[in-house]
């Protein structure tokens, strides 16, 4: 049986003010991504990328987004991601940029990468922590990160 292959773009939403992250929802990212593709690749790109394009997962606490698209034209969306400068939600404009961390074939591979990436970040950030309390809060934060993702994938 022919399998419909897709690509999952694992992106991180970077905002200057962390409290603005909580305002985001998947609709805002969906519209922003579609607008960016339409601007960068025209009508042709907008129509082609809208086939099978969806925001699969969004974590407002950590700013991790999974974008799902078809394997044949995931590069269109990938190349248009740097053109996203702000996300709009209920009339509020949040300036941000999307940082693409990983492109995977399934959610499971993206999750494995995320766990590896988080451990690397932890190793990088722990020596910089001044106090014991800060260290524990970092570990807790990243654990929360992984468990939220796991929970969502299993549900």
């Amino acid at each position: 049986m022919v399998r419909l292959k897709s690509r999952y773009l694992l992106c991180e939403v970077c905002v200057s003010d962390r409290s603005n992250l909580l305002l985001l929802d998947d609709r805002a990212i969906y519209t922003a991504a579609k607008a960016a593709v339409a601007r960068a690749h025209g009508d042709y790109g907008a129509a082609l990328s809208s086939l099978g394009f969806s925001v699969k997962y969004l974590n407002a606490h950590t700013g991790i987004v999974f974008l799902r698209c078809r394997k044949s034209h995931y590069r269109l969306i990938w190349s248009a991601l740097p053109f996203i400068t702000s996300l709009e939600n209920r009339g509020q404009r949040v300036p941000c940029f999307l940082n693409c961390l990983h492109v995977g074939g399934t959610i499971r591979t993206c999750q494995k990468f995320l766990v590896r990436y988080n451990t690397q970040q932890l190793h990088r950030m722990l020596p910089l922590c001044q106090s014991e309390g800060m260290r524990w809060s970092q570990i807790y934060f990243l654990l929360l990160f992984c468990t939220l993702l796991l929970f969502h994938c299993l549900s």
Partner: protein
Amino acid sequence: MRRAHIQDQPATYERLVYKNTSLYHYMRISLQLENESTRLSAAQLKQLICSGLRDLYGESNVLQTSDFPFYLLSNQTFPLFRSLFLFVSFSGLVKLWSALTLLGSYQNELCSFRVTQVSPFLLTLSGNSRELELD
């Protein structure tokens, strides 16, 4: 290992097959406007073609197709149509052709591009049997 092996062999006859005839193509097109009396300068024509490309393929593809109208036939030769010659790379040919097909308006005026000839050789565009007048 492989490289040494090729160097040892003497130069042999090699047959190269090109899938397409040329890197660049020439297009002869004409623009038909709703209002026949409007005249467009070369810059305006280029702006129109670029806007068509931008609508269909976006900002990233406008510069990829290196096209520039390099000759404009005067209206005395062809009183009804205006002929334009475009020079485009082979990879951009399809994009340019599709953009010209879908271009419909110029400053709220209906217009259409008619592609008369496409050829990798410029000299072939000098003759067109459709416009040949027999005595």
